[in-house]
Structure formats: C-alpha cells, structure tokens
C-alpha cells in the first residue's frame, strides 16, 4: 500500500484519500517543523496555522525520573483510525490542510514526539481543528508509550 499519498480519483470519479503514514522513527526535529511551515508559503489562501507539539516530560515518578519514552503502535490500525479522524475533521472544519506526525521508538525527555499542524483561511477553524485532532488521536490511536527511567526501570505511560 502506497503510504504518503494525497488525493486520488477512483473509478466512480469520487475523490479518495489514502491513509498517510503518520509515523517516523525517533524524535521530531525542530527543523522538520520549520520545513513543514515553509512549504505552506505558496498556499496564499491560508490565513492561520495552528500547531500542537507534544514534548516528553522528565516526570518524577515513584519508580524514578523519566529519561525517555519508547513508543510502539499497531501501525495499520492507527493509520485507518487516523484516516477516519481526518475525514471527520475535514467534514467539520473548512481546513486547507492537516498534517500529523508521531514518533515511534526512543524519544528523550525534552524532545518532540507529536506534531499536529492544521491550516485554514481564518484562525478559528485551524485552532479548533487542531485541538480536536489532538484530543481524538490521543484517545483513539493504538499507540503506547513505555516510560524509561534513569535507573532503567520502566513503566507504561497513562493518558489523562
């Protein structure tokens, strides 16, 4: 299955979006974010971008201090779910585009593990869509974070 793909017209003449690959190995570099922003400068119908970044916290827990999170996912299912979320959000908000990136594997504290990026002509749609996408993907995507402590113990991250 081709992964990082946009729209396609199927045999019924209807537009069909294939799930995009949202996962990348390791932390999301700040330069990846700026390149993503820069790419939108040719889209001059956009008036507002909303970005959410998840950063790994060095939480102090009863098992020690978190030094990193190791992310795993049921990737195929996550892509199907993310595709549904994307369709819902595009149906609900007048967005120009949406990009979602999530780390797999090892991400150290202070590094970025989630990047959600929505754009629209006017600010409200971008901001509301970004917030709703973040809430939904945290609740619905089969992804798990294993918190690795400084003493090399581990515990499983719990989302609130």
């Amino acid at each position, binding site marked *: 299955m081709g992964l990082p793909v946009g729209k396609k017209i199927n045999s019924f003449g209807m537009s069909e979006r294939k799930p995009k690959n949202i996962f990348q190995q390791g932390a999301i570099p700040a330069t990846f974010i700026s390149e993503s922003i820069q790419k939108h400068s040719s889209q001059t119908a956009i008036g507002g971008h909303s970005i959410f970044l998840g950063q790994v916290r060095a939480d102090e827990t009863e098992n020690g201090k978190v030094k990193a999170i190791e992310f795993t*996912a*049921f990737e195929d299912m996550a892509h*199907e779910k993310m595709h549904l979320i994307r369709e819902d959000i595009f149906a609900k908000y007048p967005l120009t585009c949406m990009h979602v990136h999530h780390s797999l594997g090892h991400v150290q504290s202070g590094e970025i*593990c*989630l990047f959600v990026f929505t754009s629209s002509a006017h600010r409200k749609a971008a901001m509301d869509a970004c917030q709703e996408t973040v809430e939904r993907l*945290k609740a619905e995507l089969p*992804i*798990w*974070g294993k918190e690795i402590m400084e003493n090399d113990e581990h515990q*499983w991250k719990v989302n609130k």
Partner: protein
Amino acid sequence: MQVHIMFFGQLTDITGTQELVLHDIYDTNTLQETLHELYPALANAKYAIAMNKKTIQGNSMFSGDSTIALLPPFSGG
C-alpha cells in the same frame, strides 16, 4: 482455521511475546479463556479487542483466518 494474535504495550510484559498463532478457536470468548489460561495475569489486565483492525464488543465469531489484537489503554501523544 487459524487465529493470529498480537499483543501490545504493557500486555507484552505479561506475555513475553508480541505475536502468537492459535488453531481451532472459533470465537473471541474461547480465545480469551485460552489466553487467560496461558497467561493468568492477562485476566486482570485492562484491554480492548480488535478483530481485523476493528474494535469489537462482546463475543464475536471468527469467519476464516482472523487477526486479533489485544489493545491496552492507548497512551500516544
């Protein structure tokens, strides 16, 4: 008929494996009983079940070879 079972997250701490193939099991209730016998701590773990990537509720029959995923609470982001 075979069932391909995938374990994720904290469940792999219990099972020690991420995948398992079982034969001659025809519904999810029987599958769960079998798994809880193999891995008693699973019975106390919180998880949802996905059949062929769709989350299911209650007992479901397998129609042909199936992939079952045991999904502990999600913690992405």
